[in-house]
């Protein structure tokens, strides 16, 4: 794939040029659609390309410009969404064929509606692991998504289609979801930026759930600036999500150049021992650039991961029990067997896992009383091969699909805001998690911007597919 010479893919640059009238939204969208048509057959990241809608929305943006009306901070910027976001008049598959029985969505998901109001243009829906239960986007129904850096490798999951689409320049940003690492793992594998905000920050209204008390919405982009611009556009309370916090918006875009504040520290123990040499090296690079002082061990991380594992399986089984009773054969086999097991989990496991979460929250609160940012690798390794059954972690071979989230699960378990930043210190990129205290997404985003300015992190633009 040749590097793009003329048409910008950065959301900030596109919006700026469209608002100034030097590029039309229609031009941008036609270019994006052509690129999708050309590359999606190789990548399999789109499950549906919405060309007609995209052209209509682009024309609407251009009409506003012609009328002297500001179309918004994301004017003409093409984006896509994971296939568990509602798009009006379309059945939300969530990567499953079981959902075909559901009626089409009446409305766009709240986040899509907010982005459309900000001038962004929806180009389609993205592939994912069935019901978001996996880390590789190898889907028995819709096929595997390929990593744009190496087509033989996984894009990560479960939001792998979204990450691959952004990494390949098919859209400027994409919405995903993260329950146990489903934004952070694909960010790491595809070499792009990802944001998983604090649990309760973004309303999940109009998205298909996986685990109610662990599901987060978030997004991918090729720069910290784009990440922040989109984040500012999607924030705000919505009563349709019972877990959405009634908090004021916390805009970050204008403060992105502010220097990082407080003390950063590298996470040791679980997060160091389960990373490979490339991941540890990436963390050191990031930690040195942010002036991290010393290392911190979270003794409860291993148990927190175990508790997240148990709760996720039980919750998924509970959510899908009717379908598992009536048509289990329609599930992706890898998902089905995990969910069936989840319906059989002893109650004592679940109760203990919930207590474990409370214990780990206390441990995290103590860590943030001394530090403002925690640094950890995002994945135990860089992108695995498609079909790869196991990964080597700390001297042991572990099933890949269930264990690529070893380093992300403990942290989403307690709902912390995290930015994943891409480091290119090997043949494939790898991600580093910048973990901030609850509601302080700004600290992680500012640290990401600082690292980007220093040239330590950056999305890898040219793909070879």
């Amino acid at each position, binding site marked *: 794939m040749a590097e793009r010479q003329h048409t910008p893919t950065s959301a900030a640059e596109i919006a700026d040029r469209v608002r100034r009238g030097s590029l039309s939204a229609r031009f941008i969208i036609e270019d994006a659609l052509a690129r999708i048509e050309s590359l999606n057959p190789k990548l399999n990241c789109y499950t549906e390309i919405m060309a007609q809608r995209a052209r209509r929305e682009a024309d609407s943006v251009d009409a506003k410009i012609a009328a002297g009306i500001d179309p918004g901070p994301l004017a003409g910027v093409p984006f896509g969404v994971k296939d568990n976001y509602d798009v009006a008049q379309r059945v939300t598959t969530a990567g499953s064929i079981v959902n075909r029985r559901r009626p089409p969505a009446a409305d766009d998901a709240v986040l899509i509606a907010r982005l459309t109001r900000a001038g962004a243009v929806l180009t389609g829906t993205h592939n994912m692991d069935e019901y978001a239960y996996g880390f590789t986007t190898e889907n028995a129904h819709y096929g595997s998504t390929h990593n744009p850096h190496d087509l033989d490798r996984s894009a990560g999951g479960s939001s792998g289609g979204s990450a691959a689409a952004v990494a390949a320049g098919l859209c400027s940003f994409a919405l995903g979801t993260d329950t146990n690492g489903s934004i952070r793992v694909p960010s790491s594998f595809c070499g792009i930026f990802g944001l998983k905000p604090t649990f309760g920050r973004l309303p999940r209204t109009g998205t298909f759930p996986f685990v109610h008390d662990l599901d987060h919405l978030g997004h991918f982009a090729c720069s910290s600036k784009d990440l922040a611009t989109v984040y500012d556009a999607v924030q705000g309370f919505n009563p349709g999500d019972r877990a959405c916090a009634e908090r004021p918006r916390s805009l970050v875009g204008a403060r992105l150049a502010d220097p990082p504040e407080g003390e950063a520290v590298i996470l040791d123990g679980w997060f160091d021992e389960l990373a490979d040499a490339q991941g540890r090296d990436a963390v050191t690079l990031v930690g040195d650039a942010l002036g991290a002082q010393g290392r911190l061990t979270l003794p409860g991380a291993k148990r927190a991961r175990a508790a997240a594992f148990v709760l996720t399986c039980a919750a998924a089984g509970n959510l899908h029990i009717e379908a598992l009773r009536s048509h289990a054969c329609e599930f992706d086999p890898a998902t089905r067997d995990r969910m069936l097991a989840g*319906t059989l989990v002893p109650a004592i496991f679940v109760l203990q896992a919930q*207590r474990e979460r409370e214990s780990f929250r206390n441990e995290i609160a103590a860590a943030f009383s001394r530090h403002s940012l925690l640094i950890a690798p995002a994945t135990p390794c860089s992108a695995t091969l498609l079909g790869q059954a196991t990964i080597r972690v700390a001297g042991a071979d572990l099933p890949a699909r269930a264990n690529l989230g070893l380093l992300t699960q403990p942290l989403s378990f307690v709902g912390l805001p995290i930015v994943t930043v891409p480091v290119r210190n090997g043949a494939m990129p790898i991600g580093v998690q910048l973990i901030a205290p609850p509601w302080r997404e700004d600290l992680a985003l500012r640290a990401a911007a600082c690292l980007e300015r220093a040239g330590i992190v950056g999305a890898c633009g040219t793909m070879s597919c």
Partner: protein
Amino acid sequence: MEPSEDDVRLLAALQKIAIAPGHMPGVIRNLVALGEQASLLFDPALDVLIEPSPVFRP
């Protein structure tokens, strides 16, 4: 300890689920993995005062 197919059928019957024979090995494999993870939660035991009550906080 690995649950037997009879164990799994009994548990599944409580949930009104009939697990197809072809699905049984995968279900047992996942139950074993769940048991291994859950075992980490009990040793050492958590302080008895740690509990996740849904308390209203300011």
